[in-house]
């Protein structure tokens, strides 16, 4: 498996190309650099002596980034890695992205984990991929078949992030999805600018996009990889139902909930929090259905005694490894364990249950709004 690389060349591209060839490894196919200025093209052509597979395209007039990308994208016959010349690929990154892309026919694009810290740690214990709502970013691997089916970016968009979002939505309409390969890491030489809000033509075409984008950030699944990376340098930060000093929950990795859950709304709020969920005081629950739903969505369940643990495993059909007996010293190690080795099954269960509860809420809302007597 090989992928071509497409870059809209800037001032530093000639110094960056060598790094791409070094880190790209065996899966690296042709590198296509699309230039606007003849001086840039001349500098890049000097590199063709070392890299015969480097293709330098010189635009006849100055083109925007989207149009330049399209030129490169439409040229190849392999999957294409779209790269910004600010991005530094870690070793094995492209190989991992290609493996994730070809792990399923329904994956349209793969983005890497953008983190400098993550390049120094072993990421084998975190989920291999996480679904993302769109594929915007400075480093994205696109599936060739999809490019052939739906075309490249729409030149009607001037902004690159909007063009990428539009492509992602068109690919989604074909029944495909976009994922992040959590074990493929890239760094950036400059910090990424904040993404502006969706507007204009993009919203007119895909009005559901903002809602989909914000829903995709709910729950612990999209945050599992960043939590793991953050906990490498310090012990995992744990919050209870209300974080201390009103600090946002995004700053914590674990939510320890030791009170019974009384209704579905409360359960949904817990499921939507970005932290890994650990449940305590399971003996105080009055509603067994809520305990069942919460326990299967939690990364760990803490019980007061061995008997309670055995009864809970038998009653709720829980995995024994995820049920622990309470001890002061033990809690810290449980928190560390759930961040270091998150259970994918629970993360998935939690995301599906949250979706289900949200859809129930929406249905209730619609029923309440519908005029009576129909």
């Amino acid at each position, binding site marked *: 498996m090989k992928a071509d690389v497409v870059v809209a060349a800037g001032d530093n591209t000639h110094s960056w190309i060598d790094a791409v060839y070094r880190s790209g490894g065996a899966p690296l196919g042709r590198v296509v650099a699309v230039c606007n200025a003849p001086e840039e093209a001349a500098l890049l052509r000097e590199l063709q002596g070392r890299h015969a597979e480097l293709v330098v395209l*010189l635009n006849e007039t100055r083109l925007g980034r989207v149009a330049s990308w399209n030129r490169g994208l439409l040229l190849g016959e392999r999957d294409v890695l779209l790269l910004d010349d600010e991005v530094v690929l870690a070793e094995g990154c492209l190989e991992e992205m290609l493996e994730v892309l070809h792990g399923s026919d329904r994956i349209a694009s793969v983005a890497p984990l953008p983190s400098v810290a993550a390049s120094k740690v072993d990421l084998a214990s975190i989920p291999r991929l996480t679904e993302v709502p769109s594929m915007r970013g400075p480093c994205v691997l696109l599936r060739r078949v999809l490019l052939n089916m739906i075309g490249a970016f729409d030149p009607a968009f001037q902004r690159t992030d909007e063009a990428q979002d539009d492509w992602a939505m068109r690919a989604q309409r074909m029944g495909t999805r976009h994922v992040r390969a959590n074990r493929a890491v890239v760094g950036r030489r400059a910090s990424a600018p904040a993404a502006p809000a969706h507007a204009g033509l993009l919203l007119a075409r895909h009005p559901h996009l903002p809602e989909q984008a914000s829903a995709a950030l709910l729950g612990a699944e999209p945050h599992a990889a960043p939590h793991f990376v953050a906990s490498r340098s310090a012990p995992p930060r744990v919050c209870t139902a209300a974080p201390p000093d009103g600090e946002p929950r995004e700053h914590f990795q674990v939510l320890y909930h030791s009170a019974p859950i009384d209704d579905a709304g409360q359960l949904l709020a817990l499921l939507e929090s970005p932290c890994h969920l650990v449940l305590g005081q399971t003996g105080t629950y009055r509603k067994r259905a809520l305990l069942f739903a919460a326990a299967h969505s939690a990364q760990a369940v803490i019980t007061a005694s061995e008997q309670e643990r055995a009864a809970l495993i038998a009653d709720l059909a829980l995995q024994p490894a995820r049920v622990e007996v309470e001890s002061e010293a033990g809690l810290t190690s449980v928190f560390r364990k759930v961040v270091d080795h998150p259970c994918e099954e629970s993360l998935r269960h939690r995301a599906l249950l949250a979706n289900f509860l949200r859809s129930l809420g929406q249905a209730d809302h619609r029923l309440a709004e519908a005029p009576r007597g129909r």
Partner: protein
Amino acid sequence: MGDATTSCKECEQLRAEIRKVREERDAALLSVARERERTNAVLMSQVAPASPPPKPIRYWAVDLLNSGVKKALPLPHAGVRAAAQLLRRFRKEEP
């Protein structure tokens, strides 16, 4: 293929030729890219057909009348259908 470090007249000539061939290859690829870009622009400009206009009132009226007859006179309605089917079958069986 990397550039050799040796430098003689023939080597220089070969290098210049390789450079020229590469430039020609890039120019040819650029032409292909431009053509495909045009195809992409055509594909992107395709607009989904507008949703069809609402049914004319006479269609609604006929549908309403038909469903009314079905509800009010279910037996004659079913009888007429059965008779029509029977007639069709007889016509098929005739040589």
